[in-house]
């Protein structure tokens, strides 16, 4: 895998995400930008999926449990050819398929999500089906850190460990912010690694905005025999745009025209810098 090209891809996706949110005047900007590197790594570097055969029974599965971070998902599905790029312009418009949460009317989306705390159980069911059918596909789910307060997450955590679902990888977009502020002020989560370990999971901690680290953690198959894997991906909410980074207020704030121009400029500079370092 070419890490540098994925890094550029991730910046391009961030630009498209900002564009979509600016055009639609709605979206979850902060979480979309924090989770872009994770989804980019999965869809370009890890998962065995193709738009030509999107329902193949042996495909890897992805469940976006933090469904509100849908903008990079739509962008990636368009980039990878599951949907037409033109359709991205309909994001959140009347009667569009590309709504503010994953929608399984769209090819490449396994299940509808949007309500937090659902993805892990659904992903566990898919991973269990693979075990029953002796198939070797993998199942990935991306959760939010604020989502960890949902009790159903821990029902799912117990279940996946009990059934030794080592074909299941859950990732937490650990950006430490939720809509009301710092996760540790809203509802303390730390030590999150110890919590998951105590539930019987193989826990790995990575820089969730570092594609190389994400790739190295995700490519191992399985990362730990007989245990599901939890990747604690430490991220920066709003990653890539200086004034959006680490600001809880940007959970679902929409950029003004000036902010939009500045955001695109910053991302363009980042692309240029990557080009230079690449050469």
């Amino acid at each position, binding site marked *: 895998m070419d890490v540098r090209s994925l890094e550029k891809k991730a910046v391009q996706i961030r630009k498209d995400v900002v564009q979509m949110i600016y055009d639609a005047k709605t979206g979850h900007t902060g979480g979309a930008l924090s989770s872009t590197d994770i989804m980019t790594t999965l869809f370009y570097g890890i998962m065995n999926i193709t738009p030509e055969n999107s329902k193949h*029974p042996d495909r890897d599965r992805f469940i976006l449990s933090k469904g509100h971070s849908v903008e990079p998902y739509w962008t990636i599905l368009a980039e990878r050819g599951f949907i037409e790029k033109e359709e991205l312009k309909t994001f959140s418009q009347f009667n569009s398929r590309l709504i503010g949460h994953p929608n*399984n009317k769209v090819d490449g989306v*396994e*299940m*509808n*999500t*949007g*309500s937090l*705390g*659902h993805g*892990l*159980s*659904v*992903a*566990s*069911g*898919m*991973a*269990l*089906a*693979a075990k*029953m*059918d002796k198939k070797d596909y993998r199942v990935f789910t991306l959760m939010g850190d604020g989502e960890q307060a949902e*009790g*159903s997450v821990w*029902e*799912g955590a*117990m*279940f996946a460990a*009990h059934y030794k679902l080592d074909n299941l990888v859950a990732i937490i977009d650990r950006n430490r912010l939720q809509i009301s502020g710092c996760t540790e002020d809203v509802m303390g989560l730390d030590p999150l690694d110890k919590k998951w370990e105590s539930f019987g999971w193989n826990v790995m901690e990575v820089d969730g905005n570092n594609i190389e680290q994400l790739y190295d953690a995700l490519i191992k198959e399985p990362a730990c025999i007989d245990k599901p894997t939890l990747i604690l991906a430490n991220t920066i909410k709003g990653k890539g745009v200086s004034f959006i980074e680490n600001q809880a207020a940007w959970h679902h704030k929409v950029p003004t025209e000036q902010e939009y121009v500045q955001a695109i400029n910053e991302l363009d500079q980042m692309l240029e810098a990557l080009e230079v370092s690449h050469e």
Partner: protein
Amino acid sequence: MNKIPNREVVNDVLVEHAKTNKDIVVLASDSRGSAKLAPFAKTHHNQFVETGIAEQNIVGVAAGLASCGKIPFVASPACFLSMRSVEQVKVDLAYSNTNVKLVGISGGISYGALGMSHHSVQDLAVMRAIPGMTVVLPADRFETQKMVEALLETYGPTYMRIGRNPVEDVYDSLDYEFRLGKANVLHEGKDVTLIGAGETVRVVLDAALMLEKEGIHARVLNMHTIKPLDTEAIIKAARETGYILTLEEHSIYGGLGGAVSEVVAAQCPVKMEIMGIPDEPAVAGTTGEVFAHYGMTAEMICQKVSAQLGKKKEA
């Protein structure tokens, strides 16, 4: 008197079909005993999944299994399955359109003495308000068998509610036509229509037989499918009998009576009576005691119908 509870029939049908249909998966939330599914768990342990007492997770897991081609049957007490996991039902089953069959066991006031926490008398209202859900209740052991077999043949998320104890037979064999969404006429009449669902079908049928002796001819509809509702049978009953009475083991709000009256009020307004559990924490007791307490008996139906038809005659 029949000694076989409907939940045992569910087990038997699934045990039989799972021999050849390897996609069938049964899930239980520490409920294999109360669901009478221990034989399934034993004979088909590779197709049985225990989740522990975790009703949200069990529904989500079932949805994931279904999305990979399995046909999951989730058997868990109706009181918890229809309430604790309702959001998973809404999002993971109905919204995502997954082929999961929920079997709410010990429904209604089956757990009579255990109190309101264990009564499920809002489940029909909740489930039928969710788009895409099929909602069914079998009248007896024969219908339970036909219903489970029909569900195996039909794609889509479903809530099936069954009671805990054996119920008196309504049918005498499997030799009748059962179609999801199509009510069965069990007794013909033109003076009134009595509609039951699940375990109240036997009660309204008994009421019709009693009324017959008084010279009142009651039509009896077995509304085994609450959703999609057989509106045609309801409109026909309203037109031809001019008076409809429903009896359900459920709150009088939003269940069978609610569903029927929505159709009657909009399409053919006639006199209606909705009998069931009133809007209060139901009294504790056996099913028979609770039914008697709330007048959910064949005798009370006869009294109500006679009085109403008497009034009509005087007018």
